[in-house]
């Protein structure tokens, strides 16, 4: 019989999971949907180490996202007219643009990392422990710190370079 407090786990993990997924799919709604999907599966499977399990499933779901995008693209075309008319009335274009620009900058910086470095950083940022990251990525616990150090330095460098280039353009 399961002794996991799923309600508590959901409350403490869901936001982390969405953040983790968002930096992979760069779409808040989609990240939220995928996080829910991961929880639905977790509730069905009731794994023994649910938090690590959730992140593992979430990472797999994000990998599958490319396939989903194909279907979504079609869906988006169908809804385009409706969405355009709604956006005009409810969105502030300036704030939307700056948010997109911000995300674009971070995304570009993250893309400059190796897959393993990026994954380690995102897992850490989502609240995973060194041991959990090590298990997820097949690293020794002692190597997680080195991986994170490299990832953080590269992320900072990439982001700063982009900012410098932007300033030069302006």
């Amino acid at each position, binding site marked *: 019989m399961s002794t996991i407090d*799923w*309600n508590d786990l*959901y*409350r403490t993990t*869901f*936001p982390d999971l*969405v*953040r983790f997924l*968002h*930096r992979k799919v760069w779409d*808040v709604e989609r*990240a*939220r949907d995928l996080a*829910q999907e991961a*929880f*639905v*599966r977790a*509730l*069905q*499977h009731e*794994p*023994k180490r649910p938090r690590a*399990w959730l992140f*593992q*499933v979430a990472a*797999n779901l994000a*990998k*599958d996202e*490319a*396939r989903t995008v*194909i*279907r979504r*693209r*079609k869906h988006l075309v169908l809804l385009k007219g409706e969405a355009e008319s709604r956006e005009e009335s409810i969105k502030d274009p300036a704030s939307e643009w700056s948010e997109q620009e*911000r*995300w674009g*900058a*971070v*995304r570009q*910086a993250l893309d400059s990392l190796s897959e393993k470095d990026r994954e380690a*950083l995102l897992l*850490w*940022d989502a609240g995973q*422990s*060194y*041991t959990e990251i090590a298990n997820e990525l097949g690293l020794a*616990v*002692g*190597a*997680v*710190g*080195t*991986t*994170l*150090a490299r990832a*953080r*330095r590269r*992320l*900072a460098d990439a*982001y700063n370079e982009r900012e410098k280039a932007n300033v030069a353009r302006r």
Partner: protein
Amino acid sequence: MLHVDEGALHAYLDGALDEYPAAEAERVREHLDGCAECAARLAVERSIRSDAAAMLGLAAPDVEMPSFEELRAYVRTTRPPQQAASVRIYRLGWAASVVLALGAGWMVRDGQLQPIQRGNAGQLEESALRPARQQAEQGASADVDEVAAEAAQIVEAERDGRRSEVAAAGGVSVVSAPTVAEPPATRADLPADVVAKVSALDEGPPLSVKDEPDPSVDDLERGVGALTSLADADQMAGRSADLQPLTLEASRESVDAIRSGDSLGLGEVIATAVPAAPQDAPRAEPNLAAERRRAESLVPVTSAISQGTAATGRAVNEYQREEDEPSLVVPGYPVLTVTNLGDGTSPLGVHVVQSLEGGEILELFHLPPGVDPSLVLPPTEGRNEIRMPVGEGWVVIQGPRTEGELRALFESLFAEG
């Protein structure tokens, strides 16, 4: 004096030293207390860590959480139909394959569907009832009688020309094999070797399943179903290209994912074919592994869709294709692999790899309506591509031939016979 490396500095900053071996953690703490150089380095790393965290924070979305009770209610309302539907579909698929594979003699072993050796039947029969009994003890829903009855139902439907009804109901359509006799109604009526095969399927391949998530009987069924559902495609391709029956392959990792529920279970299952040996020549053992390696080494990874998962619809249609439908494979050339693309609910097409004269590789992508042909990566150097609309979908062909020659190969897809 051995200074602290930057990894340990970050572990210190992250409060993760306790996850290090105790002696090492103690050494790092003591060293940082007394080493000015490392203290300075720590300050630099602290700044980098802080910058990185701030940058990631820039991309932190506002998270709106549905209530847990809503989620739980959703799981309660959707789980039974979801599981029942998927298991039923797959079970129909593999049950039918078991019955229909009588002539071909298939069995699942080591994650592959392989021709069964005559001498194995008795050995398999010994353990025939054990898995079913185990399932009954576990209260699992799977029942060999039920499976056999479902298979019989499908075959009956096939004979009555109700194939479309089966497909519409979510069942996997079946390629009728001339060797199928009267469909048995229950396990008692099944020939012993079929019972043995059912049991072999129940037992599943000896996989090193990860600690969690725990595989359930249903997952196992889905995994086996995923593998065997492609048998239809195999048989079809084999017939089209006059090939020997094909072998199904799936990576251990892939089948693990199927069994754990991380995947719908049909992905990365490869159907491999080899040319039939001439009848008068001594029959050489086909080197499937070599064929597969060859195909893998020569075929470029073709964008995300080649990572797709399998769907049998297109392939089964192919077997009874309409006049204006193309054949799945170019007649006359050995088929190396047939990979169905899609997630089981939304097929993305079929990827076929064939061998041209001299071992050159020809690739065909059959894309159904709604799938953009530009998703297929452009051909590598020395190869050309044609994209031909077919109905509302596309056929993309890539190979080391001129566009005119590729068009001729495309036209041969519509040749009769």
